[in-house]
């Protein structure tokens, strides 16, 4: 689908694919259909990585090969940024700094209802430039939303370059901890560690919201994309597509 002919946000989808895979496989507990009223919520606040979510939705059987093959086709629904009209996609993002607040509202609602449903919100490190991210963290902590897990995909890059050069986050784990989150730090490409740490965070006692800082590599798995920010938003040619697929296989 990344070869659809239009530019795509490909590199940031590769940084969070393992995070999403682990969530869908073991933590979201969504049953037969994406609108399962008992599963947990996945909020992809960094909507630019939505192609990774489409891949998961295809694996779950909720999207079809036809959907994938006709990405960006006239009259199709899968857009270049996450869109809540797609079954299985909880929030519309792409304008950054929106999704986490909606996730916080969902977590508050589920907590009030006592459903036991959790919210996993995936936020980008570039996205953390946005003020509402920090408003949302304050709120989550104040309202003791222990059913919220904020996963920060720290791939070190944003649209125009390295995060530390554009708007340095400094010690992000320290920041999340300071905002009242029970925070762990992991290699965001190690599925076993991700799985174990998410389980640990979910099972922790206490009222604090949970934070997971996942260190990742933008463009992970494709050597010519890793660390090269021109792959943030670009078009794949037949040549680069086949080269990338060969490496991923």
């Amino acid at each position, binding site marked *: 689908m990344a070869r659809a002919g239009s530019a795509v946000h490909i590199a940031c989808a590769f940084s969070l694919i393992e995070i999403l895979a682990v969530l869908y496989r073991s933590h979201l507990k969504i049953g037969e259909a994406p609108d399962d009223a008992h599963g947990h919520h996945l909020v992809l606040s960094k909507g630019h990585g939505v192609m990774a979510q489409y891949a998961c939705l295809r694996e779950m059987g909720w999207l079809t090969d036809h959907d994938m093959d006709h990405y960006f086709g006239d009259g199709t629904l899968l857009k270049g940024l996450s869109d*809540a*009209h797609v079954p299985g996609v*909880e*929030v*519309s993002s792409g*304008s950054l*700094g*929106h*999704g*986490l*607040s*909606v*996730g*916080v*509202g*969902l*977590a*508050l*609602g*589920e907590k*009030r*209802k006592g459903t036991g449903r959790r919210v996993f919100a995936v936020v980008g490190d570039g996205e953390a430039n946005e*003020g*509402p991210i920090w*408003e*949302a963290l*304050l*709120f989550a902590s*104040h309202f003791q939303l222990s059913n919220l897990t904020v996963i920060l995909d720290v791939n070190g890059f944003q649209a125009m370059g390295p995060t530390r050069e554009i708007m340095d986050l400094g010690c992000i784990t320290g920041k999340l901890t300071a905002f009242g989150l029970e925070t762990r730090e992991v290699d965001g490409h190690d599925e076993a560690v991700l799985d174990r740490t998410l389980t640990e965070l979910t099972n922790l006692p206490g009222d604090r919201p949970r934070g997971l800082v996942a260190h990742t590599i933008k463009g992970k798995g494709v050597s010519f994309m890793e660390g090269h920010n021109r792959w943030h938003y670009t078009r794949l040619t037949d040549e680069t597509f086949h080269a990338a697929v060969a490496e991923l296989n």
Partner: protein
Amino acid sequence: MRKAFSAALAAAAGKDPRVLLLTGDHGYALFDEVRRLRPDQYINAGVAEQNMVGVAAGLAKAGYRPVVYGLSAFVPVRVLEQIKIDVCYESLPVVFVGDGAGVVYSTLGASHQSTEDVAALRSLPGLSILSPADAAEMAAAMDLALAADGPVYLRMGKSDLGAVHTTTPTLQWGRMVPVQPGGGPLVWLATGSMVPTALTAAIEWADSAVWSVPCIKPLDAGHVAAVCGRHEAVVVLEEHSVYGGLGSAVAECTAARHPTWVCRIGVRDRFSRCCGSYEYLMHEHRLDVESVQAQVRDFVAALPARRSARPLAA
């Protein structure tokens, strides 16, 4: 009117546990009643309006009926994108209450005055806009808003300017409410705080009809055109910019269905220059009774030769 809002909110919260009030650390005594009766349904989200609207969207997705309260200078304008993406795009049932609409925060300056909120919101798909004129309209507007299955903006003035209706009005989406019958050449359509002004100003033109427009969007174009069609010309009044508010909406309706002359009275393309009393600022913006009458006189004098012989000039 604010008392009516407070009472309606407390009643709604008492009836329906899904109703949750969210405020961005504003409102003070306005929420004493709901906090006393239903403290668990009151959420102070802090001075963080953008997050508050996102949270409201999440709560609506979880099955709640959030009422988001703020000054109309902040909710909706500061959070326009959150209303668009988080709420309107999914047609979530969130009620936004913009308090202190217009220039009523007359001593606080441009940051707290809002004459652009309706214009900013009218183009958001699926969002309805209510602008009640008195306590009775407010109570009815709250009923409409809380029963809606999509997002609603309820614009509330801060000053209580008294009742405009002698009997309890029935509010319907898209419909105007008659305040004063009349068969004269002028029909006056006003919303919110400007309805009392319209009633007083209209005395100068014999047999003027006066309507309150508590529902700015949706606006039934056929109904508006039919009402306007019974008169020679239309005067529209709002404590809001003349761009994009009720005057624009009425002109759109009449242009399509019954072209006529429309005098749009509102805030011109400017901010308040000075501070002072509310009355002073309304005069500065030419929205007091005498200034309105002067503008209508000019409008009437400039009208082309009319089709009927009924006198327009006083």
